[in-house]
């Protein structure tokens, strides 16, 4: 048996195991870059993220996207059903156009019945002048993405009981409906981080009382409490104050989940070796929290916040539907659905329920997007 041999020369692991450029790129990448790579793999989440981006971008130019203004009334076209857009006329391609739109009174059913007059063809116009509006409240403008030519109307989603175009109203309604979730979540984010952070950092009786408070709030059915709180808002308030009031109410009951997450993460990460190491090296608490602890779970927080936006959007919709939330002239999807409150609508004017489609889309989008974020939030897990 030969003697055990040890090479006295200094050992350099890099000479034995060369990192390929890809490996190097991976090991040198920052945490956020890793998250982005991981997020990109979740195709559905990426798609939903882009979709959400488009939806939020659209509220900036909703006046331009909508063919009519919010409250333009077409008194000759009350309760008009959605108008089909055609491309082919008598076997010939004309581009998007609508036929003439006539109505007759059906005296048996007491309904207006609309029908297409296929002899008249009205090609849609693009980038045309229509209802005037003040763009961002700054400039006078009347440019619209598309509108009907002279003598014709285009109601993609039909009209309501005052003859207002549903499509335009849904586009305008997005402004309120999708921002209320963001404003609400930022309020509850602040509350959640503050209270959860206090509980996790100080522990003791602060922790105990915050815990009890979260438990009380969580054990309460949300909607009845929202209803009770929004009944407090005075009728005399201006719409914009009602908006903030509702947002505040939605946020007041929503922070508990975030507070729990912050607290448990703080408690867990405080015990990690790298945290002890930082303490031993003499880092101050502020630096430890800001530099070492917070980045460790901030991505989780963003993900869970994203996942609780849908509940807020649904909450606003439900409250407005019941007439306890936003009120006209503010237009949100919930306010629009308020018109669809009775069974007649389902039977006779089903297109008044169309505002529910964007509600479903945005809630699904936020759910998948949040799922992707949550998976990406921990890029080291495989």
């Amino acid at each position, binding site marked *: 048996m030969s003697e055990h041999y040890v090479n006295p020369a200094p050992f350099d692991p890099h000479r034995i195991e060369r990192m390929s450029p890809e490996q190097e790129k991976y090991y040198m990448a920052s945490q956020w870059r890793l998250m982005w790579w991981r997020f990109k793999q979740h195709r559905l989440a990426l798609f939903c993220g882009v979709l959400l981006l488009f939806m939020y971008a659209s509220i900036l130019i909703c006046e331009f996207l909508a063919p009519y203004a919010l409250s333009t009334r077409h008194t000759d076209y009350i309760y008009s059903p959605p108008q089909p857009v055609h491309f082919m006329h008598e076997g010939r391609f004309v581009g998007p156009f609508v036929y003439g739109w006539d109505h007759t009174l059906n005296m048996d059913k007491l309904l207006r019945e609309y029908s297409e007059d296929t002899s008249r063809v009205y090609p849609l116009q693009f980038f045309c002048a229509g209802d005037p509006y003040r763009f961002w409240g700054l400039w006078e403008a009347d440019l619209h993405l598309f509108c009907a030519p002279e003598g014709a109307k285009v109601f993609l989603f039909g009209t309501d009981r005052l003859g207002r175009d549903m499509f335009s109203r849904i586009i305008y309604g997005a402004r309120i409906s999708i921002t209320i979730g963001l404003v609400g979540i930022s309020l509850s984010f602040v509350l959640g981080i503050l209270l959860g952070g206090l509980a996790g950092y100080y522990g003791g009786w602060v922790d105990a009382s915050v815990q009890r408070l979260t438990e009380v709030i969580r*054990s309460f059915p*949300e909607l009845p409490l929202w209803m*009770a709180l929004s*009944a407090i808002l*005075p009728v005399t308030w201006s719409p914009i104050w009602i908006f903030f009031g509702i947002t505040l109410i939605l946020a007041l009951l929503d922070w508990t989940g975030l507070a729990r997450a912050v607290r448990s993460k703080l408690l867990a990460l405080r015990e990690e070796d790298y945290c002890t190491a930082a303490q031993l090296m003499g880092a101050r608490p502020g630096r430890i929290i800001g530099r070492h602890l917070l980045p460790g779970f901030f991505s989780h927080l963003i993900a869970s916040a994203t996942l609780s936006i849908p509940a807020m959007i649904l909450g606003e919709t439900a409250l407005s*539907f*019941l007439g306890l939330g936003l009120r006209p002239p503010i237009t949100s999807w919930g306010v629009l659905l308020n018109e669809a409150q009775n069974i007649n609508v*389902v039977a006779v004017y089903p297109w008044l329920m169309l505002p*529910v489609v964007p509600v479903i889309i945005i809630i699904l989008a936020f759910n998948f997007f949040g799922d992707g974020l949550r998976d990406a939030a921990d890029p080291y897990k495989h």
Partner: protein
Amino acid sequence: MGPYILRRLLIMIPTLVVISFIIFVIIQLPPGDYLETYIAELESQGEWVDPQQIRMLREQYGLDEPFLQQYWTWATGMLHGDFGYSFEYGLPVTEVVGDRVFLTTLISICTILFTWMVAFPIGMYSATHQYSWGDYGLTLIGFLGLATPNFLLALVMLYFANVTFGTSIGGLMDPQYLEADWSWAKFKSVLEHLWIPVVVIGTSGTAAMIRRLRANLLDELHKPYVVTARAKGVPPFKLLCKYPLRVALNFFIADIGNMLPSIISGAEIVAVVLSLPTTGPILIAALQSQDMYLAGSFLMFLAILTVVGVLVSDIALALLDPRIRLQGGASR
């Protein structure tokens, strides 16, 4: 076991006290009170109100007393079963509430059962066939249920139930049974109407439950004991039922605590749309007309229902799962 239940019961008391206080603050917050609204309404109709009578009413209901005293009267009254007086109905709150709380409870329990019945097989299928088309499809349907606003789904279902089955619109039974005694026909009529709210409220909870059951089962399915059993040649289905499912069962019971608040919320709004004789429609009316004791008592009932439901699920869980009892302090 005994000490655990006792501890849970003791924790419940301060929780309910805090809840009752929050509720009282909320119902007191709107400016003015019911009598002011009432007087304004009478005067707008050109009727004259006797100030003497108003003063008497105020005194009787203690509306001028300080806030804390009013709370004390209300809270201690509840302990004696006296929930206050509904101005709107001119009746003690307990008489107005009566069956409605029972019906809300009935609907909630049916909904939980429905959610289990749907979520259980789907969750099992999704977990055992992870990343298959079936898994994706069922998940998508679950998400759709989650994203559709309850109230609208209720309307649409009501319409189709009316068109296809001829179910009468609104309410929980056909009109002719409203005053009738309980009979088989009445019971059948109630069942015919009950499934709509149960399915509608169930849809939103089912999706979340499927997701959680799937995640739980997936965790269990990759554990060494499952691999061992499979290596020994236990048939897949028997294996699934024998071990991982039993572990996941605990979670079904535990989940009642998470589900109850959202089920009761859903029940409220669906009840408004379907005009069910449950707490929903009356609660809204009471909130809008500032009928404070009625609104407060309803909120309190709903809170008690939730807290007790969570308690029952926790105790059932402790009976099933010895780990819970041993952990002691952890409350959920």
